């Protein structure tokens, strides 16, 4: 260890403490907490850094809609149902079947190659409910398939800021105005 006189030690510690206090008061506290005792945070434009950027509340454009869609799937029949959502538009949904079905919740961005979809959830279940915020503009929805030997009835309820829905069944596309 280094040998130093007590005076030198005291001076060094004091210098370290003063430097730390200055850095804290001049930049760290204004930037981290918006606490600005010397006005340096405002002068340096640091105060915005500590403002809460909450993601809890997202203002929505477009009009509020709700939809209830009921359908039946014969054994090994499948159906796709998707909503038109702009980027950032939100919806909540709940679907319930009277038996287990294979499902996949996915979205196709505008201008994507045919057949391309981003999948958010898939599996086998009787019901699912969720909130969803579209990460991109496009059509967003579900694929269901009945893998059982008896028909299954499914009810989908949703509310959101979508524009219209599209139903895909047996190679046909049916647009549903909401």
């Amino acid at each position, binding site marked *: *260890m280094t040998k130093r006189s007590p005076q030198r030690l005291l001076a060094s510690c004091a210098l370290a403490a003063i430097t730390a206090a200055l*850095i804290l008061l001049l930049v760290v506290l204004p930037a981290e907490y918006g*606490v600005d005792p010397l006005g340096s945070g405002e002068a340096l434009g640091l105060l915005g850094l500590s403002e809460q950027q909450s993601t809890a509340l997202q203002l929505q454009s477009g009009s509020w809609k709700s939809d209830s869609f009921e359908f039946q799937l014969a054994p090994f029949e499948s159906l796709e149902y998707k909503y038109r959502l702009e980027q950032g538009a939100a919806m909540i949904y709940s679907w319930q079947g009277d038996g287990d079905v294979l499902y996949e919740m996915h979205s196709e961005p505008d201008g994507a190659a045919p057949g391309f979809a981003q999948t958010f959830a898939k599996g086998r279940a009787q019901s699912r409910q969720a909130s969803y915020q579209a990460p991109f503009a496009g059509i967003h929805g579900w694929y269901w398939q009945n893998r059982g030997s008896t028909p299954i009835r499914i009810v989908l309820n949703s509310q959101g800021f979508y524009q219209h829905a599209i139903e895909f069944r047996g190679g046909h596309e049916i647009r549903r105005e909401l």
Partner: protein
Amino acid sequence: MIKLAVLLVLSCTTALTFGHDISADNAQFVKSLLGPAPGPFMYLGAKHMFTGYDHLLFLAAVIFFLYRPRDIFLYITLFTVGHSITLLLGVLANWQFSGQLVDAIIGLSIVYKAFENMNGFVAWGRFKPDTRVAVMVFGLFHGLGLASKLQDYMASQDGQLINLLSFNIGVELGQLLALAVLFSLLLAWRSQPGFAKHAFAVNSLLLCAGLILFGHQFTGYLLA
């Protein structure tokens, strides 16, 4: 050469500052995990330690004047045992405490060790703490800091023990890696003339950094 070493250490610390908190994407992903996920948790443990400048500064201060492998092994073991105890207990028993207060104490651990490296306790003459006890006790607080971070990422109880142990193992791997880098830098620097003279100044810088960390976290605790 010395200036280069100081510059390197400083730039590393600055760069690491931005990497300290587990990034938003990582956190989002880990929170979505249900059940045991040893891989991601081990990686996060290692990343947290390797990019956690508060832990790194303390480790640097602890090994600063350690030359014999036996001593390094002893002190790092004490630190490891200390932080593992509180990491495991804190998460398993779901201790609730202020993470910022703990982070403030972690800042003080750097102040303490830097002051001791400056031979402060000898010059002051009032009392001389046992360094081994101090490193172990501060290790307990570093573990609490790790526990509070991990509690934030663990969304489900499912697979908790495996995820916790994976995180702990990751922490030790990250620490080993960090120590290898820190020790190599120290070794190269010690062989330079004037190391002793500059060591004092660098420890004053460490002390200053510890005080800034303390002030940052303690103010956050007071404002919370």
